[in-house]
């Protein structure tokens, strides 16, 4: 995939306040979409790592 797009995906997700598990799963999922390997369940799996509102990591 395009290096600039890949770097943007890494940068935005890494700088977010989301849990680490979510970050790595979601990053992989978005990159897979760009590499045409999209699986809908992967998105559900990534979302499951998001914590409830107010419980996010600092």
């Amino acid at each position, binding site marked *: 995939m*395009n290096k600039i797009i890949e770097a943007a995906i890494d940068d935005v997700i890494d700088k977010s306040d989301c849990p680490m598990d979510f970050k790595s799963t979601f990053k992989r999922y978005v990159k897979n*979409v760009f590499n*045409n390997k999209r699986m809908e369940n992967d998105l559900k799996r990534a979302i499951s790592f998001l914590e409830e509102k107010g419980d996010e990591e600092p």
Partner: protein
Amino acid sequence: MKMSILGIEYKNIRKIADLKLLFTDSAGKVIKNTFIMMANGTGKTTTMVLLKGVLDGKASEWEAEEVKSFAPIGRKADTGEFNVTVQFDDKQYKYFLYLDYWRGVATIKTTTIEIGGQERGRHFPNPLKDIFTSEFVRRFIFDGEQVKKSMDSNSNEAEETIKYLYCLDKLDNIIADNQKILAEIQDAEGTTGSNGSLSNLRTRQRRFLDIKRNLEKKAEKLRKNIEECQKEQTDKMAQRDTLDRKYKELSETKQEILKEQQHNEDQINAQILEILRLVKSPYLICAEFSERMYELADGMTKLKLPKNISKDFFVELADSKTCVCGREIGEKERKIILEGANRYLGSDKQAILNVLKSSLKGSLYDEGLLKSFDELKELCEEGNRLQTRLNNNAEKLLAAGGEEAFQLNEEINKLREKIVVAESKLEIIESKDESNEELTDTNNLYKAELEYKDYEEKIAAATKTQEALYKKMVVETLLLNIRKKATAELKKEIIRKTNEKLQKVITDDLIEVESIDRYIKLKGKDAASEGQTLGIAYCFLGTLFEDADLEFPFVIDSPTGKMDFDKRKAVADIIPEVFNQMIAFVQSAEVEHFANKFYDRPDTQFLTIIASPKENDVEIYEGIEFFDSYQRDNKGDGQNAF
């Protein structure tokens, strides 16, 4: 992955009874550059429409009338066929478009070695199955006029081209999946405690989803309509231009006036910039302002400012027997005043007041602004005179051109009106102007979207799925930020590379891309000449084609249009470098200094298609010789080059 078009074939389509165009050599290798000269009326525009229709799949949605419009004229045929053979890396796919003129139905089928027979619909290699949308296809199969749109301030073509060629629209697919996941959760939760109000909320939310979809369809239709009208308008204007050229003197006067108008417009813009610079100094606006400012400085001197509001003032005051308010100052008060004096102006603040005072004293009025306004007035008057001369000249040209010119003029005006109406309808759908009272949640996308989101929150509250909604919002925000960041970074790189190419293409003027914000903006220039515009657009497109993940062919109708000879040469040098395969449909006027620059290139073929002496058919001639002699004999065919 690399995509190439190996050939196209027509059977019973308009003037073509049977025609096959191959873009490979005798060994089956893809020929890098193909120039096809199709005489007027032999199917150039039809070919572009069919190619787009097959590759984006829209042909199967054509209305019956549209399908029937491809039927041969003066020849009986109930069906027609168009097929295109495409190679993705080393795999071949053949797409068939069957046209049933009797029923008005178009059907697309695909065959590959893997499939064996023909399968309904379009099939692509797995990694590409989602990307062949009409937005994507029209960015590598298009006409010269469309190229210029990336420079048009009324269009967001440049931004959209980046989005589709770099497949950033894939992020929209994730946003849609994310939305679907929330809907599934809410559906599951909703069934447990279903009630009338929840169902009501869902109905209302669905209503706004329908409104949004309808508005998007309407907007798409309007955009297509505007594009078609603009194309037709350009064609008519070119015809009018050709007609005008018959009246040499009047035509030359018109060109002179247009040149003077351009110069006048540049001068007006420069004068406005100068006035804006001058009004930033208020004392230059009028003598009274300057006098008042001088008086203020004078007053400050009389009041011994800033000295008198400094610490010294309070120290002096502490020494006095009475205060400025008339009360006596005793020991206690003296002590408090001296303690408080430290809070007042120190030397740093005094320095600011001193600078202020001296700059007020130096604010001397002069008549520079007045002169600038006078000059602007003169330039505007000159602009009006030029417009009157142009109108008079246009009337004379119209009279000289007779019925044909009047007819063309009327058609151009009607098209202009249609464009204005369609643009204003599109503006209502796409505007985000909250102060516009004309916009409602049923005629405006933004307002419908707000309503939709509002119901989304209400449903989340009713189904107790606020957490799911929150997670959906987190994911959506991340995706939107990724798109924003990726677009911004891609633009920086595209601008850098485009400017590198521009230095080679436009050598007689300093043209540099400053930014891409919906469209391409130039550094220090509001506009470029028509030839420069095409040059800039090709450098921009070339950069995108170079950097995109998928290498695809570049199919273009009238690539150079009105580009002048020098720039044609430069574009001819650039095209082979940036496009892996080019198929160009050219007019005879585009051969000189463009197509003929490829005569010595080994990896190039030249095809000429002309009407057959037999009725209602065409003939194809291969090779440079016929191609070159045809263009010499038919230079007036189509647009004239400048």
